[in-house]
């Protein structure tokens, strides 16, 4: 093997001469010799990969692939259902891609990781404040897995093994919860959020807020039912909605989770996103994932460390609260910068813009013949329209006008389309959507 001659990589500095020098120090005759522990029958297998490309070539090839994708910015887009097109301030990317943040590991050596650790402490602080909850952890993989871990945690806290989930929770979230529960003997029951009922076997009642279809349910009523049975209230909240709607903590939620993608993270075909996870302080020793705490160094100077690590897999192994290790720290940073920039007034403005534009769109569509709004409940930025024919068919027609339509939920609601309107949609976009719908 060589790194010069017939093959050279700009990511691998060793020259043939340097390799030779190092080999002679070691007392080996070749690099191949270092792999002598691999049984010869299995050593140096044939490896069929495309030929390596230079940077010029790879950019060209991948631009061609990228150009086959319809981007959210290339025309009006009204698709949400768990991933949202929100404004991302320009200051986020240059800060999060600073090598000092981007190319650091998990902060195991606190003395040389104070940057990452203080960011995570800020993240825990701002997410706790946004959710009105006592504690937030350092982040989970995404909204779906965060909720699933919340459900598992509720079972640990209550020592019960049934969970009760609202029928209006995202079907994808429900599926992930079911995957996480399948091997742990936890059974899943559903409840109707309009007549919330549970029983004393249930570890928790799980509700999405706003629900999968965009509507704000009576969380108080669900909370009362849960707490009357000694079950926990688990709320999966849209963090953007919390710029205007009551925080889960104000409803006395025991555990509140969320999809953090809306907080400064691009749609990126589904990931990386960011799981938000908060709870009451009394449950911290049952929490999954990392926590950063404030402490002092030996000179009395304040600093930050990973804490309560005895919950975690690297200490507790098979008895850990979760197997989670690497999560989404870089995007916890992005969302912290987002919340700092948007701040008290900006996040409220974003929420109100979503609300205003979504309601304008709903009212205009409701005026059309053949379309209606089947659900009459307060909503935030998403809502259901009943279409005259199959929503996927309508979406194909909208795409001809370069409009990315809503999500087809006809599986759950007759000819239902879930539309999402955010601050990124102008009145012009909305009017164009209404016009195109009317022409279907």
């Amino acid at each position: 093997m060589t790194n010069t001659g017939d093959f050279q990589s700009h990511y691998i500095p060793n020259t043939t001469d340097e390799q030779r020098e190092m080999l002679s120090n070691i007392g080996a005759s070749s690099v191949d010799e270092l792999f002598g522990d691999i049984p010869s029958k299995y050593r140096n297998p044939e490896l069929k990969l495309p030929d390596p490309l230079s940077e010029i070539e790879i950019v060209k090839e991948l631009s061609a692939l990228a150009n086959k994708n319809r981007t959210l910015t290339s025309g009006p887009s009204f698709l949400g259902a768990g991933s949202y097109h929100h404004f991302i301030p320009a200051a986020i990317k240059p800060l999060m891609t600073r090598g000092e943040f981007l190319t650091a590991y998990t902060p195991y050596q606190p003395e040389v990781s104070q940057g990452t650790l203080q960011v995570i402490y800020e993240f825990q602080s701002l997410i706790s404040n946004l959710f009105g909850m006592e504690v937030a952890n350092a982040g989970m993989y995404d909204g779906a897995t965060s909720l699933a871990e919340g459900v598992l945690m509720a079972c640990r806290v209550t020592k019960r093994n049934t969970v009760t989930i609202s029928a209006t929770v995202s079907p994808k979230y429900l599926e992930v919860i079911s995957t996480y529960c399948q091997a742990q003997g936890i059974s899943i029951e559903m409840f109707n959020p309009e007549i919330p009922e549970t029983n004393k076997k249930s570890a928790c009642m799980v509700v999405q807020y706003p629900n999968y279809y965009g509507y704000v349910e009576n969380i108080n009523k669900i909370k009362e039912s849960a707490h009357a049975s000694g079950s926990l209230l688990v709320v999966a909240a849209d963090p953007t909605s919390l710029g205007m709607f009551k925080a889960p903590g104000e409803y006395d939620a025991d555990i509140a989770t969320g999809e953090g993608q809306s907080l400064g993270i691009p749609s990126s075909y589904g990931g990386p996103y960011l799981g938000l996870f908060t709870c009451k302080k009394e449950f911290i020793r049952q929490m999954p994932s990392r926590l950063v705490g404030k402490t002092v160094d030996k000179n009395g100077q304040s600093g930050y460390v990973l804490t309560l690590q005895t919950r975690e897999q690297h200490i507790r192994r098979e008895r850990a609260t979760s197997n989670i290790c690497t999560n989404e720290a870089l995007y916890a940073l992005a969302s912290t910068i987002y919340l700092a920039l948007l701040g008290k007034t900006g996040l409220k403005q974003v929420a109100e813009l979503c609300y205003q534009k979504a309601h304008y769109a709903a009212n205009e569509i409701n005026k059309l013949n053949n379309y209606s709004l089947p659900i009459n409940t307060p909503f935030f930025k998403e809502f259901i329209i009943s279409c005259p024919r199959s929503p996927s068919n309508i979406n194909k027609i909208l795409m001809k006008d370069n409009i990315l339509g809503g999500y087809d939920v006809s599986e759950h609601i007759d000819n239902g389309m879930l539309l999402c309107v955010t601050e990124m949609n102008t009145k012009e976009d909305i009017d164009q959507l209404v016009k195109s719908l009317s022409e279907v």
Partner: protein
Amino acid sequence: MEQGGNRNTQKLLMDRSVPGRVGCILPDSDVPFQALPPVNLLRNSLPLPEVSEPEVVQYFTGLSHKNFSIDTHFYPLGSCTMKYNPKINDEIAFSPGFAQIHPLQPEESSQGALNLLFDLQQYLAEITGMDGVGLSTLAGAHGEFAGMLMIRAYHQQNKDFGRLKVAIPDSAHGTNPASAAMSGFDVITIPSDDNGNIDVKFLKSIAGPELAGAMITLPSTLGIFDTNIVEVCEIVHKAGGLVYGDGANMNALLGRAKLGELGFDVIHLNLHKTFSTPHGGGGPGAGPVCAKNILLPYLSAPIVTCNESNYSLTRPKHSIGRISGFQGNFGVLVRAYTYIRTLGAQGMKSISGNAVLNANYIMDSLKDIYDLPFNRTCMHEVVFSAQSKKANDVTGLEIAKRLLDYGFHAPTMYFPLIVDEALMIEPTESETKETLDAFIDAMREIDKEISTNPQIVKEAPHSTPVSRLDEAHAARSPNLKWEPVK
């Protein structure tokens, strides 16, 4: 030396807040006013900071200066593969054609993304010697969880309900037993033999009708290639179990051996280790699951399939189900794809060759002063024991902390658990010989200090933004968020 004023990083965002400052400007609403919802649904206060954009940029830039990172420091953190993260990978992942696409948009409008994912599945299968790959798992431990659920589902499908035990070596990462437990298994710990290999005799004694499988890291966390591995896989298979491979250490084996050919049935890869995607201070990662034919029907949903050059998302027949919100950490997958296309097959071999060469060079240059628990050729990382330094009352942790003063990130300490005072060093292929030599010099210098001036080692670090932090205090009275001054 930290600056004063706003650029000083001590103050937290909430304490920087000044009423009336804003960090971004949004447009006014362009639609007619819509009635607000009932007031009892609305919140009264939103306790977020009020700071301007320059303050935010200065604050976070200041914080970044308090980190060691690959771009600023040698980071030989064993088992973490802290190699150079190519900038072109980031640039491509952030390009609008990849970053600005919605996970649920119609497949005909995302064929480029699906094509990339399909090809990546093929490349990873080829590299690992497996038959197929799923990409929806979001980190290494997430891949382990999916893989172990697949093994469970496989046995259940065969009505083999009694297989509830999983054998895991004592050298394994903590995620392995934790993932096995989340997948409903009881863990049996397998000891290592005198050479650091899996104790075959012990494994034979527990291989029976209750064994669902084994979880094995190769090379092991001792940094060595287990020479019994083929026999180990055969023993597990003969007993009716399946073999899970933790691919955390794949950087050593790229182009050198395929886990699928050695006998593994299902493995995960850490793209944020082997395939150069940035670790980001603790993620995002990606942990694709690569499996043999018998386990492909159980992969988590969705996977990408291709029918006459038309790509789509598909649910495998007996899928363990959806394990994440959408189809995986796409941005990370784009980076790994770019890396593989940049390096090709020869590049894969060059990565492993140079990574292993660099680790052996460090091992050889330090083995006269630091103990080797297993004196044999290492793979991509070397594990020393600092046990003998205890004679001077110096621990492995203190040596690690002293390295910070020399401008090097510490090795992984106290892992694997079976080595006393372990220091696990992984240089990777992307460091120069000059850097390795400087690191070796620092380790030798510290060794001298241990005998001449042990106090300077014991009290290290001395030159970092903070000194040794009181972790016990942090755990005893947890302070986990900002509170207003009372």
